[in-house]
């Protein structure tokens, strides 16, 4: 393994063009992740056609690097502006944004830098050592019933965070699931809820919806605060967390690495669920549960470690099985196909050089978050000094391009603004926007895997529950729903 890693590193840094592409990916991913309104997906969608002109290894490596650094970059906007750069950064905003309001933005971002790097590097190391055996294990043990069970567990966790009441938490997730039913059904391809509008047959694209729910609705919330005179400019601080502060959370880091890796390895799940579950587990194991959501460093640490730990793991189903785990990994499949390659078991035999360049690039990209991330963060923190009336139109313009660039449809820009208005109204009413978004993302995956699982077991629930991983996850989901309901009914005190 070490020989292969060194060979990959040599190939990566031995060619000036490849170095340039690597650095472009590192800086571009961080920058687009950290600019409110756009995300790594925007940059990836714009760059996709250009990868045809690159070597296959360069193209795939660029997207792998974008994935690692963009996942980290999205944490910055989540912390500074309450606008997660991508859905996997949504739980980061639960505690990160309150920290910014308390003048502790530097601490939150510093923790995100370090924990993203730790999560990503650990994941890259495990990925290098264990892609083949883990892929073999996954082929034997993970099927549609397990994926559905994990989706159920993840939605159960998401429904208990972010809303004002447990009922609104559940409603939020269900609204997301309902929006996800628009478009063709994943089994028979039958059009659902297109209301006679042909563009809706393809469903609601989740990038515009996410931009609307997170970025545009936040702009509207800030506009209201400006209009009612309640706007308080966030406080800028550059004080990073001390080593001791971070060392205290070593168990949270370790737990989130495991959670992130487990979620990332399952096809179709990706880093978003990892972040929610990392945050949920941090709450579950904490002695001071009441402090979450009010600016607790552990909240930032848990979600940021988990989502970056999922990035390396997400490469396992992609490279070993050819199954993408999210939007960016799906674009990577397109990069492979542009070069007449097909990700899957054969790629290890036919293109080992490509695989090891990608592995090495991901390792070094995650490590570079530590160095470039700190420098970039100190620059980005200055964004807080720009008056919001000047930042708002810039964010809206960037979000417009971000929504349009995915499919080239004006409809998507409209969807984004409608989602923004809906998000604003729902936030005022105490609903959980991250819950809606997770429901939207996982809805189709959940339905598809439920249907496939049912077909596999011939509609026999006994066989369904004879699969141990599936049973454990379903029971864990039911327990999560039960405990959150019990806690909610047992205490009628003020919000925590």
């Amino acid at each position: 393994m070490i020989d292969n890693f060194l060979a990959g590193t040599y190939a990566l840094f031995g060619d000036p063009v490849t170095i340039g592409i690597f650095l472009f990916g590192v800086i571009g991913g961080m920058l687009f992740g950290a600019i409110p309104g756009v995300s790594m997906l925007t940059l990836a969608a714009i760059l996709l056609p250009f990868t045809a002109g690159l070597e296959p290894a360069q193209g795939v490596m660029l997207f792998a690097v974008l994935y690692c650094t963009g996942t980290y970059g999205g944490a910055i906007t989540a912390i500074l502006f309450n606008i997660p750069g991508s859905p996997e950064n949504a739980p980061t905003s639960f505690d990160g944004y309150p920290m910014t309001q308390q003048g502790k933005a530097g601490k939150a971002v510093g923790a995100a830098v370090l924990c993203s790097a730790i999560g990503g590097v650990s994941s890259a190391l495990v990925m290098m050592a264990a892609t083949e055996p883990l892929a073999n294990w996954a082929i034997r043990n993970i099927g549609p019933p397990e994926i559905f069970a994990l989706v159920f567990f993840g939605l159960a966790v998401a429904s208990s965070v972010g809303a004002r009441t447990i009922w609104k938490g559940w409603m939020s997730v269900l609204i997301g699931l309902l929006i996800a039913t628009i478009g063709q059904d994943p089994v028979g391809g039958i059009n659902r809820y297109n209301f006679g509008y042909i563009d809706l047959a393809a469903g609601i694209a989740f990038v515009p919806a996410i931009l609307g729910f997170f970025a545009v609705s936040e702009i509207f919330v800030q506009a209201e605060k400006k209009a009612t005179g309640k706007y308080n400019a966030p406080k800028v601080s550059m004080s990073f967390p001390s080593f001791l502060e971070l060392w205290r959370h070593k168990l949270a880091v370790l737990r989130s690495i495991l959670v992130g890796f487990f979620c990332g390895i399952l096809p179709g799940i990706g880093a978003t669920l990892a972040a929610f579950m990392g945050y949920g587990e941090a709450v579950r194991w904490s002695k001071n549960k009441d402090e979450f959501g009010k600016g607790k460093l552990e909240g930032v640490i848990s979600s940021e470690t988990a989502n970056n730990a999922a990035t390396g793991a997400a490469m396992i189903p992609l490279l070993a099985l050819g199954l993408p785990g999210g939007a960016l990994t799906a674009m990577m499949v397109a990069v492979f196909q542009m070069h007449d390659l097909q990700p899957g078991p054969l790629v290890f035999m036919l293109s080992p050089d490509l695989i090891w360049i990608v592995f090495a690039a991901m390792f070094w990209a995650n490590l570079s978050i530590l160095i470039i991330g700190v420098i970039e963060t100190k620059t980005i923190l200055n964004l807080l000094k720009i008056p919001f009336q000047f930042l708002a139109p810039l964010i809206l313009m960037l979000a417009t391009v971000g929504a349009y660039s995915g499919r080239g449809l004006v409809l998507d820009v409209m969807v984004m603004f409608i989602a923004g208005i809906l998000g604003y109204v729902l936030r005022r009413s105490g609903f959980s926007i991250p819950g809606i978004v997770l429901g939207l993302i996982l809805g189709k995956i959940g339905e598809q895997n439920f249907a496939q699982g049912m077909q596999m077991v011939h509609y026999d629930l006994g066989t369904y529950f004879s699969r141990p991983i599936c049973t454990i996850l379903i029971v864990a989901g039911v327990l999560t729903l039960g405990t959150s309901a019990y806690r909610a009914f047992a205490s009628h005190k003020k919000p925590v």
Partner: protein
Amino acid sequence: MGRLTKGHLVEAAIWLSIVAVFYAYSFEFNQVIEIYIFGATAWPRTVLFLLLLATLGNLYHQYKNGSDAQGGIFGAAADDVSASIFQDRKTLIRMGLVLLIPFAFAFLLRPVGIYFSAPFFIAAIMLLFGERRWKAILIMTVVIYIIFIGLFLVILNAQLPQGNVSPFYDFSAWMLKMNTQLRELF
């Protein structure tokens, strides 16, 4: 009425209407799928049934506790929003415009294109956010427009809506021509 308010009832009515409309519309695609006995409607109808239960549960919670937050919920949004905008007509109009102008901008993208409409949209948003110094609005509009054009047109050469009505389309075509000439220089 317990602690129910008019707002709670309106909220419940909206969700119940959504459930009813979506349920009624589900008969439009109630087709048999040969390989899947539950068909295309089972999943959405299950979601609708659960949404109905959650809406009724939420209404019962509001009947008992009003708008109070429950314990045991973590990471609840820290938005300090209130109903005060509905009491002040001026603020209400301003918020209405903040919500409408982006939508109007999106609606105009197809006929007018982004290159022509962007500066007006940028300036309008600044104005709605309370900026009244016209020099600042002018300078920042130009700065943001240059950043936008520089990043997406010049550097990334992204495909953006150009409009389909003259003279807006001609303006977009002129911008693209300038960009091509600029690229040829380097």
